Protein backbone atom coordinates (compact mmCIF):
# COMPACT_ATOMS: atom_id res chain seq x y z
CA UNK A 1 0.00 0.00 0.00
CA UNK A 2 2.69 2.45 -0.95
CA UNK A 3 0.28 4.65 -2.86
CA UNK A 4 -1.57 5.63 0.31
CA UNK A 5 -1.43 9.19 1.53
CA UNK A 6 0.04 8.41 4.89
CA UNK A 7 3.41 6.88 5.50
CA UNK A 8 2.86 3.17 5.77
CA UNK A 9 4.66 1.63 8.72
CA UNK A 10 3.30 -1.91 8.52
CA UNK A 11 5.72 -4.82 8.63
CA UNK A 12 6.60 -6.68 5.45
CA UNK A 13 5.43 -8.00 3.01
CA UNK A 14 4.45 -4.71 1.37
CA UNK A 15 3.83 -6.08 -2.09
CA UNK A 16 1.49 -8.99 -2.38
CA UNK A 17 1.01 -11.43 -5.22
CA UNK A 18 -2.49 -11.59 -6.58
CA UNK A 19 -2.38 -15.37 -6.33
CA UNK A 20 -4.63 -16.68 -3.61
CA UNK A 21 -5.79 -20.14 -2.63
CA UNK A 22 -9.07 -19.24 -4.26
CA UNK A 23 -7.48 -18.26 -7.57
CA UNK A 24 -5.38 -21.43 -7.64
CA UNK A 25 -8.37 -23.63 -6.89
CA UNK A 26 -10.39 -21.79 -9.52
CA UNK A 27 -7.66 -22.58 -12.06
CA UNK A 28 -7.75 -26.23 -11.05
CA UNK A 29 -11.54 -26.27 -11.47
CA UNK A 30 -11.20 -24.71 -14.92
CA UNK A 31 -8.57 -27.31 -15.79
CA UNK A 32 -10.94 -30.06 -14.70
CA UNK A 33 -13.74 -28.77 -16.91
CA UNK A 34 -12.69 -30.45 -20.18
CA UNK A 35 -12.62 -33.81 -18.40
CA UNK A 36 -16.00 -33.05 -16.84
CA UNK A 37 -17.52 -32.29 -20.23
CA UNK A 38 -15.92 -35.43 -21.63
CA UNK A 39 -17.39 -37.52 -18.84
CA UNK A 40 -20.82 -36.12 -19.66
CA UNK A 41 -20.40 -37.05 -23.29
CA UNK A 42 -19.01 -40.51 -22.57
CA UNK A 43 -21.10 -41.66 -19.63
CA UNK A 44 -24.21 -39.52 -19.97
CA UNK A 45 -26.03 -37.02 -17.80
CA UNK A 46 -25.70 -39.13 -14.67
CA UNK A 47 -21.98 -38.43 -14.60
CA UNK A 48 -22.66 -34.69 -14.39
CA UNK A 49 -25.32 -35.12 -11.70
CA UNK A 50 -22.96 -37.33 -9.73
CA UNK A 51 -20.28 -34.65 -9.87
CA UNK A 52 -22.75 -31.98 -8.76
CA UNK A 53 -23.91 -34.12 -5.84
CA UNK A 54 -20.33 -34.79 -4.80
CA UNK A 55 -19.36 -31.12 -4.95
CA UNK A 56 -22.45 -30.05 -3.01
CA UNK A 57 -21.81 -32.71 -0.37
CA UNK A 58 -18.15 -31.69 0.04
CA UNK A 59 -19.00 -28.01 0.43
CA UNK A 60 -21.81 -28.72 2.90
CA UNK A 61 -19.62 -31.06 5.00
CA UNK A 62 -16.82 -28.51 5.04
CA UNK A 63 -19.18 -25.69 6.03
CA UNK A 64 -20.93 -27.78 8.68
CA UNK A 65 -17.77 -29.10 10.25
CA UNK A 66 -16.05 -25.71 10.39
CA UNK A 67 -19.19 -24.31 11.99
CA UNK A 68 -19.43 -27.23 14.41
CA UNK A 69 -15.80 -26.86 15.50
CA UNK A 70 -16.10 -23.06 15.86
CA UNK A 71 -13.49 -22.23 13.26
CA UNK A 72 -13.45 -19.67 10.49
CA UNK A 73 -15.27 -20.81 7.42
CA UNK A 74 -13.13 -21.86 4.48
CA UNK A 75 -15.58 -22.90 1.80
CA UNK A 76 -14.73 -19.67 -0.04
CA UNK A 77 -11.30 -20.99 -1.02
CA UNK A 78 -13.00 -23.56 -3.29
CA UNK A 79 -10.75 -26.40 -2.17
CA UNK A 80 -13.79 -28.43 -1.13
CA UNK A 81 -15.18 -27.99 -4.65
CA UNK A 82 -11.98 -29.43 -6.13
CA UNK A 83 -12.11 -32.36 -3.70
CA UNK A 84 -15.74 -32.97 -4.64
CA UNK A 85 -15.01 -33.00 -8.36
CA UNK A 86 -12.01 -35.30 -7.93
CA UNK A 87 -13.95 -37.77 -5.80
CA UNK A 88 -16.71 -37.92 -8.40
CA UNK A 89 -14.05 -38.38 -11.09
CA UNK A 90 -12.78 -41.39 -9.17
CA UNK A 91 -16.13 -43.20 -9.18
CA UNK A 92 -17.84 -45.21 -11.88
CA UNK A 93 -20.95 -43.40 -13.11
CA UNK A 94 -23.28 -46.17 -11.91
CA UNK A 95 -22.37 -45.81 -8.22
CA UNK A 96 -25.30 -44.94 -5.90
CA UNK A 97 -25.29 -41.31 -4.78
CA UNK A 98 -25.17 -42.08 -1.06
CA UNK A 99 -21.91 -43.95 -1.48
CA UNK A 100 -20.30 -40.90 -3.03
CA UNK A 101 -21.63 -38.78 -0.17
CA UNK A 102 -20.09 -41.19 2.35
CA UNK A 103 -16.78 -40.90 0.52
CA UNK A 104 -17.09 -37.10 0.55
CA UNK A 105 -17.78 -37.13 4.28
CA UNK A 106 -14.69 -39.22 4.93
CA UNK A 107 -12.51 -37.06 2.70
CA UNK A 108 -13.63 -33.72 4.09
CA UNK A 109 -14.27 -34.48 7.75
CA UNK A 110 -11.74 -37.17 8.60
CA UNK A 111 -8.92 -36.72 6.11
CA UNK A 112 -9.04 -32.93 5.86
CA UNK A 113 -10.78 -31.12 8.72
CA UNK A 114 -9.78 -33.40 11.58
CA UNK A 115 -6.18 -32.61 10.74
CA UNK A 116 -6.78 -28.86 10.65
CA UNK A 117 -8.27 -28.12 7.24
CA UNK A 118 -6.62 -26.96 4.07
CA UNK A 119 -2.84 -27.03 4.19
CA UNK A 120 -2.77 -29.36 7.19
CA UNK A 121 -4.04 -32.61 5.72
CA UNK A 122 -1.38 -35.34 5.62
CA UNK A 123 -2.93 -37.11 2.63
CA UNK A 124 -4.86 -35.83 -0.33
CA UNK A 125 -8.52 -35.82 0.79
CA UNK A 126 -9.81 -36.95 -2.60
CA UNK A 127 -7.48 -39.96 -2.63
CA UNK A 128 -8.41 -40.79 0.94
CA UNK A 129 -12.09 -40.66 0.00
CA UNK A 130 -11.51 -42.86 -3.02
CA UNK A 131 -9.61 -45.50 -1.06
CA UNK A 132 -12.25 -45.44 1.68
CA UNK A 133 -14.91 -46.18 -0.93
CA UNK A 134 -12.75 -48.70 -2.78
CA UNK A 135 -12.24 -50.73 0.39
CA UNK A 136 -15.91 -50.55 1.32
CA UNK A 137 -18.04 -50.85 -1.79
CA UNK A 138 -17.85 -53.42 -4.54
CA UNK A 139 -19.78 -50.96 -6.73
CA UNK A 140 -16.54 -48.98 -7.02
CA UNK A 141 -15.16 -51.56 -9.43
CA UNK A 142 -18.26 -52.11 -11.55
CA UNK A 143 -17.43 -50.00 -14.53
CA UNK A 144 -20.06 -48.65 -16.83
CA UNK A 145 -19.18 -48.91 -20.48
CA UNK A 146 -19.64 -45.79 -22.57
CA UNK A 147 -22.55 -45.47 -24.97
CA UNK A 148 -25.36 -46.27 -22.56
CA UNK A 149 -27.10 -43.14 -23.82
CA UNK A 150 -27.03 -39.59 -22.53
CA UNK A 151 -30.31 -39.84 -20.66
CA UNK A 152 -29.50 -43.12 -18.90
CA UNK A 153 -30.16 -41.77 -15.41
CA UNK A 154 -31.14 -44.98 -13.67
CA UNK A 155 -27.58 -45.94 -12.99
CA UNK A 156 -28.44 -49.47 -13.92
CA UNK A 157 -25.26 -51.34 -14.64
CA UNK A 158 -26.70 -52.44 -17.94
CA UNK A 159 -23.38 -52.58 -19.69
CA UNK A 160 -20.59 -53.23 -17.32
CA UNK A 161 -17.24 -54.60 -18.18
CA UNK A 162 -13.75 -54.88 -16.87
CA UNK A 163 -11.41 -51.93 -16.90
CA UNK A 164 -8.84 -52.33 -19.71
CA UNK A 165 -6.21 -53.13 -17.09
CA UNK A 166 -8.00 -56.38 -16.29
CA UNK A 167 -9.41 -57.16 -19.72
CA UNK A 168 -8.01 -59.77 -22.03
CA UNK A 169 -6.37 -58.85 -25.33
CA UNK A 170 -9.45 -59.31 -27.57
CA UNK A 171 -11.65 -56.99 -25.49
CA UNK A 172 -9.20 -54.10 -25.54
CA UNK A 173 -10.36 -50.89 -27.17
CA UNK A 174 -8.02 -49.36 -29.71
CA UNK A 175 -5.34 -46.92 -28.61
CA UNK A 176 -7.27 -44.03 -30.16
CA UNK A 177 -10.40 -45.01 -28.24
CA UNK A 178 -8.31 -45.13 -25.11
CA UNK A 179 -6.96 -41.66 -25.81
CA UNK A 180 -10.33 -40.01 -26.34
CA UNK A 181 -11.87 -41.98 -23.49
CA UNK A 182 -14.32 -44.39 -25.14
CA UNK A 183 -13.73 -47.11 -22.59
CA UNK A 184 -15.02 -48.28 -19.24
CA UNK A 185 -13.66 -46.68 -16.13
CA UNK A 186 -14.14 -43.96 -13.59
CA UNK A 187 -15.82 -40.73 -14.65
CA UNK A 188 -12.84 -38.48 -15.04
CA UNK A 189 -10.02 -40.84 -15.81
CA UNK A 190 -11.00 -42.12 -19.22
CA UNK A 191 -10.62 -39.12 -21.54
CA UNK A 192 -6.86 -38.63 -21.65
CA UNK A 193 -7.17 -35.87 -24.26
CA UNK A 194 -9.34 -33.73 -21.96
CA UNK A 195 -7.02 -34.33 -19.02
CA UNK A 196 -4.05 -33.22 -21.10
CA UNK A 197 -5.86 -30.00 -22.08
CA UNK A 198 -6.32 -29.34 -18.37
CA UNK A 199 -2.68 -30.16 -17.74
CA UNK A 200 -1.51 -27.68 -20.36
CA UNK A 201 -3.82 -25.00 -18.89
CA UNK A 202 -2.33 -25.55 -15.44
CA UNK A 203 1.19 -25.34 -16.86
CA UNK A 204 0.43 -22.08 -18.69
CA UNK A 205 -1.08 -20.57 -15.55
CA UNK A 206 1.91 -21.91 -13.61
CA UNK A 207 -0.37 -23.53 -11.06
CA UNK A 208 1.63 -26.74 -11.07
CA UNK A 209 5.16 -27.50 -12.14
CA UNK A 210 5.57 -30.22 -14.77
CA UNK A 211 8.08 -32.11 -12.62
CA UNK A 212 5.72 -34.45 -10.78
CA UNK A 213 3.43 -35.47 -13.70
CA UNK A 214 6.36 -35.94 -16.10
CA UNK A 215 8.53 -37.96 -13.77
CA UNK A 216 5.55 -39.98 -12.53
CA UNK A 217 4.33 -40.96 -15.99
CA UNK A 218 7.91 -41.27 -17.23
CA UNK A 219 8.79 -43.74 -14.49
CA UNK A 220 5.76 -45.87 -15.29
CA UNK A 221 6.67 -45.74 -19.00
CA UNK A 222 10.25 -46.85 -18.39
CA UNK A 223 9.26 -49.70 -16.09
CA UNK A 224 6.53 -50.90 -18.48
CA UNK A 225 8.98 -50.76 -21.40
CA UNK A 226 11.47 -52.86 -19.48
CA UNK A 227 8.80 -55.29 -18.28
CA UNK A 228 7.26 -55.57 -21.76
CA UNK A 229 10.73 -56.03 -23.27
CA UNK A 230 10.37 -52.94 -25.45
CA UNK A 231 6.72 -53.54 -26.44
CA UNK A 232 5.50 -50.01 -27.27
CA UNK A 233 1.82 -50.97 -27.59
CA UNK A 234 1.80 -52.56 -24.14
CA UNK A 235 3.45 -49.47 -22.70
CA UNK A 236 0.99 -47.14 -24.40
CA UNK A 237 -1.98 -49.13 -23.04
CA UNK A 238 -0.50 -48.98 -19.57
CA UNK A 239 -0.03 -45.20 -19.77
CA UNK A 240 -3.52 -44.53 -21.15
CA UNK A 241 -5.44 -46.87 -18.90
CA UNK A 242 -6.55 -46.55 -15.31
CA UNK A 243 -6.30 -43.31 -13.43
CA UNK A 244 -2.63 -42.67 -14.18
CA UNK A 245 -2.99 -39.35 -16.00
CA UNK A 246 -5.73 -38.08 -13.71
CA UNK A 247 -3.68 -39.04 -10.66
CA UNK A 248 -0.39 -37.69 -11.97
CA UNK A 249 -1.78 -34.32 -13.08
CA UNK A 250 -4.45 -33.50 -10.53
CA UNK A 251 -3.88 -35.56 -7.40
CA UNK A 252 -0.15 -36.19 -7.02
CA UNK A 253 0.49 -32.45 -7.50
CA UNK A 254 -1.58 -31.35 -4.49
CA UNK A 255 0.51 -28.62 -2.79
CA UNK A 256 -0.04 -29.79 0.74
CA UNK A 257 0.93 -33.37 0.24
CA UNK A 258 3.79 -33.19 -2.26
CA UNK A 259 7.37 -32.02 -1.60
CA UNK A 260 8.32 -28.39 -2.24
CA UNK A 261 11.85 -28.65 -3.61
CA UNK A 262 12.54 -29.85 -7.15
CA UNK A 263 14.71 -32.69 -5.92
CA UNK A 264 12.02 -33.75 -3.50
CA UNK A 265 9.40 -33.65 -6.25
CA UNK A 266 11.52 -35.91 -8.44
CA UNK A 267 11.98 -38.46 -5.66
CA UNK A 268 8.26 -38.29 -4.85
CA UNK A 269 7.19 -38.71 -8.48
CA UNK A 270 9.57 -41.61 -9.12
CA UNK A 271 8.28 -43.25 -5.94
CA UNK A 272 4.70 -42.88 -7.17
CA UNK A 273 5.59 -44.32 -10.58
CA UNK A 274 7.49 -47.22 -9.07
CA UNK A 275 4.68 -48.15 -6.69
CA UNK A 276 2.02 -47.82 -9.39
CA UNK A 277 3.96 -50.11 -11.73
CA UNK A 278 4.69 -52.66 -9.02
CA UNK A 279 1.04 -52.79 -7.94
CA UNK A 280 -0.16 -53.10 -11.53
CA UNK A 281 2.34 -55.77 -12.53
CA UNK A 282 2.77 -57.84 -9.39
CA UNK A 283 0.01 -56.80 -6.99
CA UNK A 284 -3.36 -58.43 -6.59
CA UNK A 285 -5.16 -55.21 -7.59
CA UNK A 286 -5.64 -54.13 -11.21
CA UNK A 287 -4.96 -50.48 -10.40
CA UNK A 288 -2.52 -48.89 -8.01
CA UNK A 289 -2.49 -45.16 -8.72
CA UNK A 290 -4.46 -44.13 -5.64
CA UNK A 291 -2.52 -46.38 -3.27
CA UNK A 292 0.84 -45.27 -4.62
CA UNK A 293 -0.07 -41.58 -4.31
CA UNK A 294 -1.37 -41.95 -0.76
CA UNK A 295 1.78 -43.86 0.25
CA UNK A 296 4.03 -41.18 -1.21
CA UNK A 297 1.87 -38.51 0.47
CA UNK A 298 2.78 -40.12 3.75
CA UNK A 299 6.45 -40.21 2.73
CA UNK A 300 6.44 -36.52 1.83
CA UNK A 301 7.61 -35.14 5.21
CA UNK A 302 10.49 -37.63 5.15
CA UNK A 303 11.45 -36.65 1.59
CA UNK A 304 11.34 -32.98 2.53
CA UNK A 305 13.59 -33.62 5.48
CA UNK A 306 16.32 -35.04 3.27
CA UNK A 307 15.95 -32.58 0.41
CA UNK A 308 15.90 -29.27 2.25
CA UNK A 309 17.69 -26.85 -0.09
CA UNK A 310 20.80 -25.19 1.28
CA UNK A 311 20.55 -21.42 1.71
CA UNK A 312 22.40 -19.60 -1.05
CA UNK A 313 26.04 -19.07 -0.22
CA UNK A 314 26.28 -21.69 2.48
CA UNK A 315 29.63 -23.48 2.07
CA UNK A 316 29.41 -27.21 1.81
CA UNK A 317 32.10 -27.93 4.33
CA UNK A 318 30.39 -26.11 7.16
CA UNK A 319 27.69 -28.69 7.48
CA UNK A 320 30.13 -31.55 7.73
CA UNK A 321 32.14 -29.67 10.32
CA UNK A 322 29.04 -29.11 12.37
CA UNK A 323 28.20 -32.75 12.22
CA UNK A 324 31.72 -33.65 13.26
CA UNK A 325 31.49 -31.29 16.19
CA UNK A 326 28.17 -32.68 17.25
Amino acid at each position, binding site marked *: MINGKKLNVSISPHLRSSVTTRSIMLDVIIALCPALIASGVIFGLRALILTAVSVAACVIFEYAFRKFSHRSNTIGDLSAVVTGILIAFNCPSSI*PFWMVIVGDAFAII*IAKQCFGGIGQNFVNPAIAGRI*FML*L*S*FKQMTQWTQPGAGFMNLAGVQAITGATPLAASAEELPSLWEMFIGMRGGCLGETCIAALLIGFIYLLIKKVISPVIPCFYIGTVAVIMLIYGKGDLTFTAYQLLSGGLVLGAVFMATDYTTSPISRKGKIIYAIGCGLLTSLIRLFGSLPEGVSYSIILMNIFTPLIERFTTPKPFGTPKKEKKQKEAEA
Partner: protein
Amino acid sequence: MAEKKSLGKEFSKGLISENPVLRLVLGTCPTLAVSVSVTNAIGMGIAATIVLICSNVVISALRKVIPSKIRIPAYIVVIASFVTIVQMLVKAFVPALNDALGVYLPLIVVNCIILGRAEAFAGKNPVAASFFDGLGMGIGFTFALIVMATVREIIGSGTFLEGIDSLTALFGVTSFTGFTLFENPIGVIVMAPGGFLVFGLVMALANKIAEGRGKPKAELKGCDACPMASACGAACVGGSCESSEKEEQAV
Protein backbone atom coordinates in the same frame (compact mmCIF):
# COMPACT_ATOMS: atom_id res chain seq x y z
CA MET B 1 -17.88 -45.73 56.27
CA ALA B 2 -14.72 -44.22 54.83
CA GLU B 3 -13.58 -47.70 53.87
CA LYS B 4 -16.82 -48.38 52.03
CA LYS B 5 -16.70 -45.14 50.12
CA SER B 6 -13.18 -45.77 48.88
CA LEU B 7 -14.15 -49.24 47.68
CA GLY B 8 -16.95 -47.72 45.66
CA LYS B 9 -14.46 -45.27 44.25
CA GLU B 10 -12.06 -48.05 43.29
CA PHE B 11 -14.92 -49.65 41.43
CA SER B 12 -16.32 -46.60 39.68
CA LYS B 13 -13.03 -45.09 38.53
CA GLY B 14 -12.55 -47.85 35.99
CA LEU B 15 -15.87 -47.17 34.35
CA ILE B 16 -15.29 -43.73 32.90
CA SER B 17 -12.77 -41.46 34.61
CA GLU B 18 -9.97 -44.05 34.33
CA ASN B 19 -11.48 -46.24 31.67
CA PRO B 20 -8.62 -48.58 30.73
CA VAL B 21 -9.13 -48.36 26.98
CA LEU B 22 -10.37 -44.85 26.43
CA ARG B 23 -8.54 -42.97 29.18
CA LEU B 24 -5.47 -45.03 30.11
CA VAL B 25 -5.00 -46.31 26.53
CA LEU B 26 -4.24 -49.85 27.66
CA GLY B 27 -5.23 -53.07 25.92
CA THR B 28 -5.40 -51.38 22.54
CA CYS B 29 -4.46 -54.45 20.53
CA PRO B 30 -7.34 -56.73 21.61
CA THR B 31 -9.67 -53.74 21.46
CA LEU B 32 -8.90 -53.10 17.80
CA ALA B 33 -8.94 -56.77 16.88
CA VAL B 34 -12.03 -57.96 18.71
CA SER B 35 -14.38 -55.00 18.32
CA VAL B 36 -15.65 -56.07 14.89
CA SER B 37 -18.82 -57.55 16.36
CA VAL B 38 -20.77 -56.94 19.55
CA THR B 39 -20.93 -60.65 20.33
CA ASN B 40 -17.14 -60.91 20.27
CA ALA B 41 -16.84 -57.77 22.34
CA ILE B 42 -19.16 -59.09 25.05
CA GLY B 43 -17.39 -62.47 25.08
CA MET B 44 -13.93 -60.92 25.22
CA GLY B 45 -15.01 -58.40 27.86
CA ILE B 46 -16.44 -61.08 30.15
CA ALA B 47 -13.40 -63.34 29.72
CA ALA B 48 -10.97 -60.52 30.44
CA THR B 49 -13.01 -59.29 33.41
CA ILE B 50 -13.02 -62.73 35.01
CA VAL B 51 -9.27 -63.07 34.55
CA LEU B 52 -8.72 -59.54 35.81
CA ILE B 53 -10.75 -60.01 39.01
CA CYS B 54 -9.21 -63.39 39.81
CA SER B 55 -5.64 -62.34 39.13
CA ASN B 56 -6.08 -59.08 41.02
CA VAL B 57 -7.38 -60.91 44.08
CA VAL B 58 -4.66 -63.59 44.04
CA ILE B 59 -1.83 -61.16 43.36
CA SER B 60 -3.10 -58.84 46.06
CA ALA B 61 -3.27 -61.71 48.54
CA LEU B 62 0.26 -62.79 47.65
CA ARG B 63 1.71 -59.29 47.45
CA LYS B 64 3.80 -59.73 50.62
CA VAL B 65 5.05 -63.15 49.58
CA ILE B 66 6.19 -62.30 46.03
CA PRO B 67 9.74 -60.90 46.00
CA SER B 68 9.73 -57.61 44.16
CA LYS B 69 12.64 -58.56 41.86
CA ILE B 70 10.75 -61.41 40.21
CA ARG B 71 7.26 -60.03 40.56
CA ILE B 72 6.57 -59.76 36.81
CA PRO B 73 7.16 -63.48 36.10
CA ALA B 74 5.16 -64.29 39.21
CA TYR B 75 2.26 -62.12 38.03
CA ILE B 76 2.39 -63.68 34.60
CA VAL B 77 2.19 -67.18 36.09
CA VAL B 78 -0.90 -66.21 38.09
CA ILE B 79 -2.54 -64.49 35.11
CA ALA B 80 -1.68 -67.32 32.71
CA SER B 81 -3.23 -69.87 35.06
CA PHE B 82 -6.53 -68.01 35.06
CA VAL B 83 -6.42 -67.43 31.31
CA THR B 84 -5.92 -71.15 30.78
CA ILE B 85 -8.91 -71.92 32.98
CA VAL B 86 -11.07 -69.37 31.17
CA GLN B 87 -9.94 -70.63 27.78
CA MET B 88 -10.81 -74.21 28.67
CA LEU B 89 -14.24 -73.11 29.88
CA VAL B 90 -14.88 -71.11 26.71
CA LYS B 91 -13.77 -74.00 24.51
CA ALA B 92 -16.07 -76.35 26.38
CA PHE B 93 -19.17 -74.20 26.64
CA VAL B 94 -18.98 -71.53 23.89
CA PRO B 95 -16.88 -73.07 21.11
CA ALA B 96 -18.18 -70.55 18.57
CA LEU B 97 -16.79 -67.70 20.64
CA ASN B 98 -13.46 -69.50 20.91
CA ASP B 99 -13.30 -69.69 17.12
CA ALA B 100 -14.28 -66.04 16.73
CA LEU B 101 -11.77 -64.71 19.24
CA GLY B 102 -9.03 -66.98 17.97
CA VAL B 103 -5.59 -66.10 19.26
CA TYR B 104 -6.85 -63.14 21.25
CA LEU B 105 -8.29 -65.36 23.95
CA PRO B 106 -4.94 -66.89 25.04
CA LEU B 107 -3.38 -63.47 24.45
CA ILE B 108 -5.30 -62.14 27.46
CA VAL B 109 -2.16 -63.33 29.31
CA VAL B 110 -0.22 -60.40 27.95
CA ASN B 111 -3.15 -57.96 27.95
CA CYS B 112 -1.61 -54.82 29.39
CA ILE B 113 -4.75 -53.95 31.34
CA ILE B 114 -4.38 -57.05 33.46
CA LEU B 115 -0.63 -56.83 33.96
CA GLY B 116 -0.96 -53.07 34.39
CA ARG B 117 -3.55 -53.37 37.15
CA ALA B 118 -1.51 -56.12 38.83
CA GLU B 119 1.57 -53.93 38.77
CA ALA B 120 -0.07 -50.62 39.58
CA PHE B 121 -2.80 -51.62 41.96
CA ALA B 122 -3.09 -55.21 43.14
CA GLY B 123 0.58 -55.44 44.09
CA LYS B 124 0.18 -52.58 46.56
CA ASN B 125 -3.39 -52.71 47.81
CA PRO B 126 -5.51 -54.99 50.00
CA VAL B 127 -7.64 -57.78 48.59
CA ALA B 128 -11.06 -56.11 48.76
CA ALA B 129 -9.89 -52.93 47.03
CA SER B 130 -8.14 -55.01 44.36
CA PHE B 131 -11.32 -56.98 43.76
CA PHE B 132 -13.33 -53.83 43.12
CA ASP B 133 -10.55 -52.31 41.05
CA GLY B 134 -10.54 -55.42 38.86
CA LEU B 135 -14.31 -55.44 38.58
CA GLY B 136 -14.47 -51.75 37.64
CA MET B 137 -11.64 -51.97 35.15
CA GLY B 138 -13.08 -55.13 33.61
CA ILE B 139 -16.51 -53.57 33.19
CA GLY B 140 -14.87 -50.43 31.82
CA PHE B 141 -12.97 -52.53 29.29
CA THR B 142 -16.14 -54.38 28.31
CA PHE B 143 -18.04 -51.11 28.02
CA ALA B 144 -15.42 -49.57 25.73
CA LEU B 145 -15.34 -52.73 23.62
CA ILE B 146 -19.12 -52.78 23.28
CA VAL B 147 -19.26 -49.09 22.31
CA MET B 148 -16.65 -49.59 19.60
CA ALA B 149 -18.10 -52.87 18.43
CA THR B 150 -21.60 -51.39 18.17
CA VAL B 151 -20.36 -48.61 15.91
CA ARG B 152 -18.19 -50.92 13.83
CA GLU B 153 -20.71 -53.73 13.47
CA ILE B 154 -23.64 -51.51 12.51
CA ILE B 155 -21.68 -49.38 10.03
CA GLY B 156 -19.21 -51.97 8.83
CA SER B 157 -21.31 -55.12 8.59
CA GLY B 158 -24.87 -53.78 8.57
CA THR B 159 -25.79 -56.16 11.39
CA PHE B 160 -26.26 -55.92 15.14
CA LEU B 161 -25.62 -58.65 17.72
CA GLU B 162 -24.89 -61.08 14.89
CA GLY B 163 -24.13 -64.54 16.28
CA ILE B 164 -25.33 -63.65 19.78
CA ASP B 165 -26.95 -67.10 19.95
CA SER B 166 -23.50 -68.59 20.65
CA LEU B 167 -23.53 -66.70 23.97
CA THR B 168 -27.22 -67.00 24.82
CA ALA B 169 -27.06 -70.74 24.15
CA LEU B 170 -25.48 -70.96 27.61
CA PHE B 171 -28.91 -70.09 29.01
CA GLY B 172 -30.74 -72.29 26.56
CA VAL B 173 -31.88 -69.49 24.24
CA THR B 174 -30.94 -69.92 20.60
CA SER B 175 -33.89 -68.38 18.79
CA PHE B 176 -32.45 -64.85 18.57
CA THR B 177 -29.54 -64.58 16.18
CA GLY B 178 -29.19 -60.83 15.77
CA PHE B 179 -30.52 -58.22 13.41
CA THR B 180 -29.57 -57.66 9.81
CA LEU B 181 -30.02 -53.95 9.32
CA PHE B 182 -29.09 -53.11 5.74
CA GLU B 183 -27.12 -54.17 2.70
CA ASN B 184 -24.06 -52.49 1.27
CA PRO B 185 -22.34 -51.71 4.58
CA ILE B 186 -19.20 -49.55 4.66
CA GLY B 187 -16.84 -52.50 4.76
CA VAL B 188 -13.68 -50.61 5.62
CA ILE B 189 -14.97 -49.97 9.14
CA VAL B 190 -14.57 -53.63 10.11
CA MET B 191 -11.09 -53.73 8.60
CA ALA B 192 -7.99 -52.62 10.47
CA PRO B 193 -8.03 -48.97 9.27
CA GLY B 194 -11.64 -48.65 10.38
CA GLY B 195 -10.66 -50.00 13.78
CA PHE B 196 -8.12 -47.23 14.29
CA LEU B 197 -10.55 -44.70 12.91
CA VAL B 198 -13.39 -45.62 15.26
CA PHE B 199 -10.97 -45.95 18.18
CA GLY B 200 -9.70 -42.43 17.58
CA LEU B 201 -13.18 -40.97 17.28
CA VAL B 202 -14.48 -42.74 20.39
CA MET B 203 -11.42 -41.60 22.35
CA ALA B 204 -11.98 -38.05 21.18
CA LEU B 205 -15.56 -38.28 22.37
CA ALA B 206 -14.45 -39.67 25.75
CA ASN B 207 -11.96 -36.81 26.11
CA LYS B 208 -14.66 -34.34 25.21
CA ILE B 209 -16.99 -35.75 27.86
CA ALA B 210 -14.21 -35.77 30.45
CA GLU B 211 -13.28 -32.19 29.58
CA GLY B 212 -16.90 -31.14 29.94
CA ARG B 213 -16.79 -32.48 33.50
CA GLY B 214 -13.72 -30.41 34.23
CA LYS B 215 -11.37 -33.37 34.12
CA PRO B 216 -8.05 -33.22 32.31
CA LYS B 217 -7.62 -35.00 28.99
CA ALA B 218 -6.59 -38.64 29.02
CA GLU B 219 -3.86 -38.68 31.62
CA LEU B 220 -2.85 -40.49 34.74
CA LYS B 221 -3.43 -39.18 38.19
CA GLY B 222 -0.01 -39.48 39.74
CA CYS B 223 2.56 -42.20 39.46
CA ASP B 224 0.46 -44.66 41.47
CA ALA B 225 -1.94 -45.14 38.61
CA CYS B 226 0.83 -45.61 36.07
CA PRO B 227 1.55 -49.23 35.23
CA MET B 228 5.15 -48.33 34.45
CA ALA B 229 5.67 -46.45 37.72
CA SER B 230 8.12 -48.85 39.28
CA ALA B 231 10.14 -49.30 36.12
CA CYS B 232 9.96 -45.63 35.22
CA GLY B 233 13.11 -43.60 35.77
CA ALA B 234 11.48 -40.19 35.64
CA ALA B 235 11.16 -38.11 38.72
CA CYS B 236 7.73 -37.83 40.22
CA VAL B 237 6.91 -34.17 39.61
CA GLY B 238 3.76 -32.97 41.32
CA GLY B 239 2.12 -36.36 41.14
CA SER B 240 2.79 -36.91 37.45
CA CYS B 241 5.81 -38.14 35.59
CA GLU B 242 7.59 -36.30 32.79
CA SER B 243 5.66 -36.04 29.57
CA SER B 244 7.97 -38.23 27.50
CA GLU B 245 7.53 -41.11 29.91
CA LYS B 246 3.81 -40.59 29.87
CA GLU B 247 3.68 -40.99 26.13
CA GLU B 248 5.76 -44.13 26.29
CA GLN B 249 3.43 -45.85 28.65
CA ALA B 250 0.56 -45.07 26.36
CA VAL B 251 2.02 -47.53 23.88
